[in-house]
């Protein structure tokens, strides 16, 4: 039974979210730290270098790490405040167990572990191995991502393991594999500096990757021009030479129309297309009728602007195309990515200095975490779990029979649907808060309530974990050694600064003990994180994401190493494709014919307005950490409904008026923020908040057929003014909404 054991208010009173503020008088010991630990921010895929100040096993502050080559000391507000997740009053300091009617009570590690193992065994013997599922996340290091993949397959023996990367960049990963045979940013960001044209497609860079702004501005400082495609005038779009305010869900039409113009005006690299690609004819055929009038009608972007984008992109000598969730969170996310890649391939501007293409990975270890096997269809080294050769190789590395290696499981959202249908009865989760981060979360809540047994590993009691039977206190980013791979493909060292407090344990030690108690201990003999990494190196060897030549020492010596790095004397690969040897079976980059299709849900008379969702600069993902840091909460206290004044006027909505937003999935109230910086047919709500303030009550469960990413970025809604103004934002308790 995984209904809440007590009222959410009483659980919040005990476990938060509560807000941690720095003390005005300062934190004792900051001026004379015992250690200054060079590590990385725990949040986004930029993985900015930062120095943590340590005193008596406490993090007491930070210093910018100016020598780290990507960010050179630069940080966003989340990075500045990250240290306040330490010594937090909400921190879980011992295992807790649900007591119906009371909430959660402390328990010991032994009884907790015994109960977990007996429940796993009970469910699996009654309903089969796959009836117990695991959900993971890519804030975990490479070592832990690898370990979770191995743990689920050979200790838990389930095929049903997936991760929150499923709602991050899987569309980009799938598109990159189809086009290039490999899934990584093709270039590091230093190739932005002298790009003549930088095209940013569906990424609110200045709020979601603030430190990347510097690199984009560098291109502009050197005379480059910037194109931004976004339904909203974001802070980075404000600085663009050309802003294309696209109607959400119409991206592939825009890129198809630009390709049409490249072909029409012969802005093509014929040599590159002939010698290094396939299927250009299919790409041409698909866009043959995508003229400017058609494109304007579909995308809502003026024909002249689309033409201008083609004129800027087409003849340029150098360029860099970046995209992120704005084009990936769609039921045609993979199509959108491939339509962008078509533009890069058609002009042959890849694999050369200042000629780049990259998805901007969102999560801290969104890159490394999607390579080493805690994804339902994947084995380490970005191998395919259904490929017999790949299965044989990994089985040999793991010392198991290939027949004992489970096959492909369900993806994250489908896994919750299977729980809802009663097919999956038990769940273990780490580093994932699906009740806030998955779409259509009324269904997610119902699914959680149907679980027979649920164990969560986390350092705070996140909203999903409130449904757990047992919660094991795991470790913060700064409490364990490891590596992460940045959005550029640079493998960096996450350094342990302190031990977990109280009875909390490292995530690794928890998984190792569980594996041992499940009878698989012989496969999990590691003394250190480096031991796990060294096994990962071997497991990745020969895969597309080849880490074999990367060692902890080499990372230390070079402040990071770019994979692929197949041997210890290999320097790593900051820029891919210089040799024009793509990793597809035929060695060529592949064009794809991308025919436009509508999003999963379009507006109609009942739901006439487009709803899109996204992030704000002061919050991170489901807010498990950032909704507990006082100043980050104060910066943007509650989710607002961004709405154009013309749309607001047509519905009689005033600024700060509470507006009821309804979709086919649910309905919720948000204060209106009237701004001219959004399309007139679209409203925007950021998604970091739980409960009644959750935008994901409204979003749809339409999935991309290939990547299975949910369509967070577009659905149909209706808006009703309530007639009353929302209370002042400083009175909002949205950070702990029930």
């Amino acid at each position, binding site marked *: 039974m995984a209904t809440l054991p007590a009222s959410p208010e009483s659980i919040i009173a005990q476990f938060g979210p509560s807000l941690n503020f*720095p003390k005005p008088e300062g934190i004792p010991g900051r001026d004379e730290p015992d250690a200054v630990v060079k590590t990385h921010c725990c949040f986004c895929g930029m993985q900015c270098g930062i120095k943590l100040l340590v005193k008596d096993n406490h993090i007491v502050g930070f210093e910018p790490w100016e020598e780290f080559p990507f*960010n050179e000391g630069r940080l966003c*507000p989340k990075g500045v405040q990250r240290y306040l997740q330490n010594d937090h009053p909400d921190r879980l300091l011992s295992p807790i167990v649900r007591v119906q009617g009371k909430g959660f009570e402390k328990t010991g590690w032994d009884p907790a572990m015994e109960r977990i193992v007996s429940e796993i065994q009970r469910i699996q013997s009654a309903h089969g191995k796959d009836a117990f599922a695991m959900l993971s996340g890519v804030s975990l290091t490479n070592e832990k991502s690898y370990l979770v993949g191995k743990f689920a397959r050979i200790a838990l023996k389930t095929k049903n393991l997936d991760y929150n990367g499923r709602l991050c960049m899987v569309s980009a990963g799938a598109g990159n594999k189809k086009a290039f045979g490999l899934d990584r940013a093709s270039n590091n960001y230093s190739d932005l500096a002298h790009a003549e044209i930088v095209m940013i497609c569906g990424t609110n860079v200045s*709020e979601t990757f603030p430190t990347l702004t*510097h690199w984009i501005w560098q291109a502009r400082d*050197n005379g480059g021009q910037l194109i931004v495609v976004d339904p909203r005038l974001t802070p980075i779009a*404000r600085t663009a030479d050309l802003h294309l305010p696209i109607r959400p869900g119409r991206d592939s039409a825009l890129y198809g129309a630009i390709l049409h113009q490249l072909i029409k005006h012969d802005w093509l690299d014929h040599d590159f297309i002939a010698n290094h690609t396939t299927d250009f004819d299919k790409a041409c055929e698909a866009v043959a009728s995508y003229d400017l009038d058609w494109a304007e009608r579909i995308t809502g972007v003026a024909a002249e602007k689309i033409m201008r984008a083609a004129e800027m992109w087409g003849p340029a000598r150098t360029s860099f195309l970046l995209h992120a969730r704005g084009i990936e969170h769609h039921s045609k996310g993979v199509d959108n990515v491939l339509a962008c890649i078509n533009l890069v391939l058609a002009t042959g501007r890849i694999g050369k200095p200042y000629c780049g293409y990259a998805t901007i990975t969102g999560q801290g270890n969104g890159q490394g975490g999607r390579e080493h096997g805690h994804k339902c269809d994947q084995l380490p080294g970005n191998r395919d779990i259904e490929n017999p050769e790949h299965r044989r190789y990994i089985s040999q590395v793991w010392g198991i029979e290939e027949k004992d290696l489970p096959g492909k499981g369900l993806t994250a959202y489908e896994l919750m649907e299977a729980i809802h249908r009663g097919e999956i009865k038990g769940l273990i989760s780490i580093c994932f808060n699906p009740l806030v981060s998955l779409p259509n979360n009324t269904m997610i809540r119902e699914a959680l309530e149907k679980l027979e047994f649920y164990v969560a590993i986390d350092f705070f009691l996140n909203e999903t974990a409130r449904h757990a039977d047992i919660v094991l206190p795991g470790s913060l980013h700064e409490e364990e050694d490891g590596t992460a791979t940045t959005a550029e493909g640079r493998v960096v060292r996450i350094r342990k600064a302190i031990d977990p407090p109280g009875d909390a344990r490292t995530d690794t030690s928890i998984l190792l003990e569980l594996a041992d108690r499940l009878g698989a201990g012989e496969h999990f003999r590691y003394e250190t994180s480096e031991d796990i990494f060294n096994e990962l190196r071997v497991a990745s060897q020969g895969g597309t994401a080849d880490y074999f030549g990367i060692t902890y020492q080499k990372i230390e010596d070079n402040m990071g190493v770019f994979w692929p790095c197949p041997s210890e004397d290999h320097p790593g690969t900051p820029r891919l494709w210089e040799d024009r040897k793509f990793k597809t079976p035929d060695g060529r980059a592949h064009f794809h014919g991308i025919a436009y299709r509508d999003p999963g849900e379009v507006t109609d008379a009942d739901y006439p307005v487009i709803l899109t969702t996204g992030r704000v*600069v002061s919050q991170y993902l489901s807010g498990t950490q950032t909704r507990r840091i006082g100043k980050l909460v104060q910066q943007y206290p509650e989710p607002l409904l961004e709405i154009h004044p013309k749309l607001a006027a047509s519905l009689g909505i005033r600024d700060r008026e509470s507006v009821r937003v309804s979709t086919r999935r649910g309905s919720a109230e948000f204060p209106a923020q009237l701004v*001219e910086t959004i399309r007139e047919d679209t409203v925007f709500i950021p998604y970091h908040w739980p409960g009644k303030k959750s935008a994901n009550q409204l979003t749809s469960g339409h999935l991309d057929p290939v990547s299975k990413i949910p369509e967070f970025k577009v659905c149909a809604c209706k808006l009703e003014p309530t007639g009353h103004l929302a209370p002042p934002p400083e009175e909002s308790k949205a950070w702990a909404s029930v």
Partner: protein
Amino acid sequence: MNAFRTDQEFFMDPQRCIGCHACEMACAECETNGQLPMIHVDYVDRYYTPQTSVQICMHCEDPVCAKVCPAVAIEKDEYGIVHSAKTDRCIACSNCVNACPFGVPKKIQPMDLMMKCNMCYDRTSAGKKPMCATVCPSGALFYGTREEMARQRPNSTPVNSFKFGKQTVKTRVNIMMPKGATELVVDDSE
């Protein structure tokens, strides 16, 4: 020993501000500020634009705040840094708050003291860069040499002369302007 680097200067380009507030949060970390930021980021007008602007103390060559201070609490040092009012002299009269052409000094109520940016004197005097300019992710705030700035931003030029009507104010902090500019005319209504 004072290790203040006289070859380094502050360069500010409010147009590059992305409104992230990293500078305010980093500034507030300084213990002498008691968790209050001495730098301020504000929307210009969110209804029309996400444009924000950022303001630090410009450290005037001939600081008006010091001139109007009846208690002689505000001093400019040999490096051109205009310091916050001395706590033992400040009488919280707000003359400086009203006089500053950039709107920088603030009277902090609970302490009844004027406080403002002192260009992270604890850091700059030790050869480090001010915290706000070290963390700023977009280059709206930059601290370094004139040569570094010229190399990084070939199409901009630093300006430290501001015209308010008939009065010209010269500052230690530079504002980045389009190439060729020599002064920033804030108000030309004489």
